[in-house]
């Protein structure tokens, strides 16, 4: 299982993902510069967090047209795995691999802290290492993370079980006080209908070592490797 991490000008979680996947999990991994059109044999593509192209216009709006994204689209359409984290999630929405948009946090503040999220579905290529209802701790770090979609899309996501993670309390309850950005239906992460594209705001790549805060991010990458090897 080879991971390829796309590097846009302004990406800043690319090295976290690289380090975690290589040193904590031991998978081969390489960086893919956004101008290249070749994925160099990567099995799983990671679109990392950061501020691609300065987040000018809207988060992900310009990155979505980077040359590498044609290859990423093609990869996704073949059913191969693509994970967008934080800014990478924004890129997936802008390119249309996932529905909806990410708006400015209700608080208007950049929010940078560990939060809890509940695993809503374990039968997916991304969450098979967790149990349904399990409460994870992962860090968030974003100013525009409020998930928004029209009501038909929200219904579709819910009924097709495509909401994989929701913000919750440490005990697993939902409520505005546990939702850090105002996301509709407490959505923290969703997948596409085919189940090979994941977008999420929290950062699993930052929690792969106890000394860095936790290891709740590890099972996600291990699940991908198991599902798509």
């Amino acid at each position, binding site marked *: 299982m080879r991971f390829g991490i796309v590097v846009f000008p302004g990406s800043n979680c690319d090295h976290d993902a690289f380090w975690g996947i290589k040193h904590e999990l031991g998978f081969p991994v390489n960086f893919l510069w956004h101008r290249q059109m070749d994925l160099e044999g990567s099995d799983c593509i990671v679109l990392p967090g950061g501020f691609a192209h300065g987040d000018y*216009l*809207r988060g992900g*709006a*310009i990155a979505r*047209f980077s040359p590498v994204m044609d290859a990423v689209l093609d990869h996704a359409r073949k059913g191969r795995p693509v994970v967008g984290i934080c800014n990478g999630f924004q890129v997936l929405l*802008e390119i249309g691999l996932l529905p*909806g*948009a990410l*708006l*400015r*946090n*209700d*608080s*208007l503040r950049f929010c940078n802290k560990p939060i809890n999220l509940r695993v809503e579905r374990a039968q997916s290529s991304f969450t098979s290492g967790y149990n349904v209802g399990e409460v994870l701790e992962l860090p968030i770090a974003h100013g525009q993370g409020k998930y*928004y*979609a*029209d009501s038909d899309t929200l219904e579709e996501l819910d009924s097709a079980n495509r909401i994989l993670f929701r913000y919750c309390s440490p005990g697993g309850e939902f409520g505005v006080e546990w939702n850090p950005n*105002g996301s509709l239906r407490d959505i923290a992460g969703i997948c596409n209908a085919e189940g090979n594209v994941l977008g999420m705001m929290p950062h699993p790549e930052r929690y792969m070592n106890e000394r860095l805060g936790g290891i709740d991010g590890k099972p996600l990458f291990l699940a991908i490797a198991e599902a798509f090897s």
Partner: protein
Amino acid sequence: MTALVHITPKPDILDPQGKAVGSALRDLGYHEVAEVRVGKYITLEIEPKEGEDVRARLDEMCRRLLANINVETYRIEITES
């Protein structure tokens, strides 16, 4: 010619930035301010080719890049000068 593109959040989208600006204006004593929406204003200098449909191309630019039509609306003005 110059094209002016106004981009604003759709009416049904909560605009927390506009709300914050609105409450700041009311704090300053401008109680007549009922609602504020904050958007973007983009100017483009256009040098169209002969026979090119400028408005259609601007519309395409808005839909493909300048606006996110899931959550924003846009309005294009073209001024000859």
